[in-house]
């Protein structure tokens, strides 16, 4: 949305997971408050990064922003490696969500159902805010044409900061949700960011619906791929991306970008 491609998004996801882990370890905070607290803390950290570092580069080619966020990835990842060690730390599924639920046709882990519910909720809420509210309208206007938007008396700078912080917060929330299912480790953001890029390219940049649809569809395709031919599951998403670029360069739901 912001024309800021954040390489560090996966890192924020990792920080969200670590915040959850350390919250439990040192402050004895249970899982549920962390769903709010961790995204808030990491989101604020994101705001700090935006205000102190990224803002300086807005007048330039967005490529520099990408490079700076790449540097942030390297710094934060190795910092966490120094603090937490390269190996993962386990985090238990909260009692209330452990076990399985009978859905009538299949027995499914309760925690995964919870994750699906929260993910859907956040996706719908994000889509609603961006597409249907006044704030969302301003964000879209600021993306479309920052100069005119500013002329209309809207503080574009602050809008960008808040939106960036929100995006980082959502990434951290994903990290909190992932903490009980995967090992919490410094490189957990690496894999996810490249998948995220592929999803965004497939869905079409700046299209929330596109990203959501592509994200879920690819999860499904990948799951099918695992059953049909396991070795292909890791590369399938990238192969899909290649096909999409050949057939529809702008992405499934995207418009053709103008210039850079």
């Amino acid at each position, binding site marked *: 949305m912001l024309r800021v*491609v954040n390489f560090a998004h996966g890192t924020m996801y990792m920080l969200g997971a670590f915040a959850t882990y350390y919250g439990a370890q040192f402050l004895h905070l249970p899982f549920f408050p962390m769903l709010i607290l961790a995204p808030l803390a990491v989101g604020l950290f994101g705001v700090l990064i935006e205000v102190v*570092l990224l803002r*300086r*580069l807005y007048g*330039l*080619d*967005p*490529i*520099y922003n*990408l*490079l*700076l966020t*790449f*540097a*942030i*990835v*390297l*710094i934060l*990842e*190795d*910092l966490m*490696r*120094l603090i937490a060690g390269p190996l993962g730390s386990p985090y238990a599924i909260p009692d209330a969500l452990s076990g399985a639920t009978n859905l009538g046709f299949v027995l499914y882990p309760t925690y995964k159902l919870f994750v699906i519910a929260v993910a859907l909720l956040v996706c719908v809420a994000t889509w609603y805010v961006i597409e249907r509210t006044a704030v969302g309208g301003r964000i879209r206007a600021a993306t479309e044409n920052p100069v005119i938007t500013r002329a209309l008396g809207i503080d574009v700078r602050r809008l960008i900061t808040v939106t960036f912080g929100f995006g980082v917060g959502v990434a951290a929330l994903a990290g909190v949700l992932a903490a009980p299912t995967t090992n919490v480790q410094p490189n957990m953001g*690496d894999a996810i960011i*490249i998948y995220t*890029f*592929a999803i*965004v*390219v497939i869905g079409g*940049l700046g299209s929330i619906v596109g990203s959501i649809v592509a994200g879920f569809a690819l999860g499904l395709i990948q799951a099918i791929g695992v059953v049909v031919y396991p*070795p292909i599951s*890791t*590369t399938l998403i*990238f*192969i899909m*991306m*290649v096909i999409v*670029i*050949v057939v529809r*360069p702008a992405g499934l739901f995207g418009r053709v*970008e103008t*210039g*850079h």
Partner: protein
Amino acid sequence: MIRTLGRDRVAAIGVVLLLIGLVLPKVIYPVVGIDLLCFALFAVSFDLLFGYVGLLSFGQALFWGGGGYVAAIVIARGHVDVAIAIAVGVAYAVVAAALVGMLAVRRAGIYFAMVTLAVAQIQYFLAVQFVDLTGGDNGLNLGARGHLLGIPIENDVVYYYIAFVLVVLGIWFALRVTRSPFGSVLQAMRENEPRAIALGYRVNRYKVAVFTMAGGLAGFAGALYAVGNHLAGLEMVDWHTSGAVVMMTVLGGIGTVVGPVVGAGLFQLLEYFVAKTPIGEETNLVMGAIFALCILLFRRGIVGSFLTPRAKRAKV
């Protein structure tokens, strides 16, 4: 502009670098010197893309690692002269680069970076999964380097000087490209793509062509690197390597050819020394911080800042 202003300075830096290159194995461990040479050529190849056309590829490890792996596989399986293995590695990189180039030029700017990164990941996962061919997590070990055009190259110093000559030839080739009419068109595209199109240049063809050249050079450097280290390992195809070459090139100064050589040298040496401090393996902490400062404060890079008159520095 940089070239006309600073041609003498580029030549001067070139001569200094050549001299340093000649005495390097006496100063540092020769294998570190070999790594340094290979990364220098790798960074120069990337400069062709980013510095001269403005194409930020985040997937150059595809060609570097691809060239390295293919050369190593040919040596391990075929027991042929190393020259043939390297040639096959380069051929692989050229073909891969032509294909990826045709795909990636459909998108511009940051999307180009994302697409190249994602495509490079395909090869990474293939390298992880085809254990029989690539050795998987362990990488593909070469017992001995063998012979290059009949010359035994097991001795590190001998191999260093052979690699030195080849790398200098590679860099000379890149320099020739940038100063050719073809190179002028590339720079015209970087400065103003719509105008280049209006002038009748088929910019996408030029982009694919330069992407292929850069890929071939990267594959050449990667093959030399793999032979030098007796190993084609997963980190060669890892996306962090793609990122590292971006850092070296930008740090040294994009669009200068000699800059990336300086950047690669500094980067490698810094990494070597930082690894010996208490920070240890986590060298990216330092490298990332230096790179962040470079992006924020001197985007022209070390050599770029040196070549540009003070008054014009503020612009980019």
